[in-house]
């Protein structure tokens, strides 16, 4: 990934992760490409990572934000496990975002659990980047 790029997320290091067994990675890769275009340094985990692994990478790489991509319906469990893992490691301040197939009625409870933003495939990329830039200011 090229460093020192310009853009609203310049200088930000962001982890895009695929927790659980879901193999649909088109969305995660589109997001990774969009974040990179916006200047961020993106780390993409690849498929099938455990919440523990994702927390460890987030800490080791000292990321500014974590994006979880989940299309299997396991977003409630997996998001909470990552949030809990970060908190337990004293890194509860790293904002976590969730994207994927998230039923509208699940949005509120995810936000309540501590997720900072929920994006679905109809969220325009520009809107997502604005929101990230705002949170990561």
């Amino acid at each position, binding site marked *: *990934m090229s460093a020192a790029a310009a853009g609203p997320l310049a200088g930000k290091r962001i982890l895009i992760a695929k927790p*659980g*067994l*879901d*193999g*649909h*990675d*088109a*969305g995660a*890769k*589109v997001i*990774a*490409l*969009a974040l*990179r275009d916006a200047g961020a340094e*993106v780390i*993409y*985990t*690849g*498929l*099938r990572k*455990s919440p523990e692994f994702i927390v460890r990478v987030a800490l080791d790489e000292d990321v500014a934000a974590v994006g979880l991509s989940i299309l*299997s*319906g*396991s977003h409630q*469990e*997996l998001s909470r*496990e990552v949030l809990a893992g970060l908190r337990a490691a004293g890194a509860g301040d790293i904002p976590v975002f969730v994207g994927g*197939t*998230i*039923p*509208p*009625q699940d949005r509120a409870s995810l936000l309540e659990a501590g997720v900072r933003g929920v994006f*679905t*495939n*109809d969220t*325009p*990329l*520009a809107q997502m980047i604005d929101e990230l830039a705002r949170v990561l200011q």
Partner: protein
Amino acid sequence: MSARLKPGEAAAGVATPSGIAVPVVATRDLAGVPDLERPGVFPFTRGIFADGYRGRPWTIRQYSGFGSAEESNQRYRFLLEQGQTGLSVALDLPTQCGYDPDHAMARPEVGKVGVSLFSLSEMETLFEGIDLGAISTSFTINGTAAIIYAMYLAAADKQGVPRAQLTGTIQNDILKEYVARGTWIFPVRPSMRLIADSILYANEVTPRFNAISIAGAHVRDAGCTAVEEMAYTLANGLAYVDELLRRGGDVAKFARRLSFFFYVHMDLFEEACKFRAGRRLWAQLLHERHGVTDEKALQFRFGVVCGGSSLVAAQPYNNIVRVAIENLAAVLGGAQSIFTCAYDEAFQIPTEFSAEIALRTQQIVQHESGAAATVDPLGGSYYVEWLTDQMERGMREVMGEIDAYGGVVKAIEDGWLQRRIAVRAKEKKDATDSGERVVVGQNHYRREAQADSYGEVFRLDPAIAGRVLEKHAQLKRSRDAARAARALDALEAAAASDRENLMPLLVECCHAYATVGEMVERLKGCWGEFQEPVRL
């Protein structure tokens, strides 16, 4: 064969989703030589059967399955009572990825996107009261396809149904899993062996069963174009043919049981022509490359799914209309089996209500629309013949690029194909965000403060995972442990060498109630796991 589009003939900016410029009006000279082909005759542009759907209507095959085997069994019985003609089993991710439900990676996913089938005990429950000799069953299963196929044979044995009578399909297409769907387990080479084992075994034991369904659907839904979808799929198909030939298979025989699977998205004509072009191209490729002349072996048989990522959460009832148009495209393209997504699949597992509308859509197209009354009703249309030619040319070009890279296996192992698809997905997203690609109700014709109504909400019983875990523990207590251990040992020994077909050993493992997780662990011990190339 066809005249190239002349400058000025395309309205500015009007192109198919694959980027083919569309003429304002297609004329006879554009379509080239009038096509005198008949359906049922090589190269099958107009269809593989001379009488189209009159002799054999397409199979209405709705994909479903969730929770435990008991819940899915009830949904299947409901669908069969409503006139569905084939079953399509959705499996949960632990079963697809080869984990037992008590594995740490499996726990949150048990019963979520499909039914948990951790052992033969669950499959027996799944098909209770359903005669496997009278129904055709399709399994969307890849990484563990050989195991699930073995389990199906064991379930048939238990029901007393002769194996030779079984009809159905296992997807069993690992190559596209590495590219788009992600339920790979083993590295590419041993996976290809397992696929060849299952196909060659199926040719002998279940001659009416499709042991592979080479699928473009998932790369398409991930973002590539219709032309690329077909090209990548045929390239994978040729790779399987090569592997089967290497294993001593007879192409005239095994090619009869190769089947294909695609998505149908929203351009009616491009989708119909994709199938006309793909059918012709596959027959030509087998003929050109392998000298196949057997008509049955040259026939390109395929199933489709309508909907997927062409469905949106905004104004979700509009999806019913989209699926109906896609359903029509599939019929005009000559599909052998069709699955229509429910309108709420963009955001949840369908409810019984939405699933019924999806089923009725197919019945309306089949019995009311008239589209099935004659073979290839679009044949001879200047536009359709021209577009079919254009798409075939595009497919050959893309296949040429893969060949130039070094073949599809190398392209996948290196992550080259995966990267191409990611870039396409980004392009499609950008075109949607900008409004260049019109999605009614989402990026165009959206009401201010539009309150999207989602109708009934599907709720998966949260106690399901617990019940599945309990059944898993119960099975391990009650089965003949010594028989299971013997069967697993024999499997491992055979997997370690390349001399023996693994299918009979897998069937014995299933009969011994060894679990999917146990079988996969043994195979991983011999073969290792696929290392995903992550290239962005």
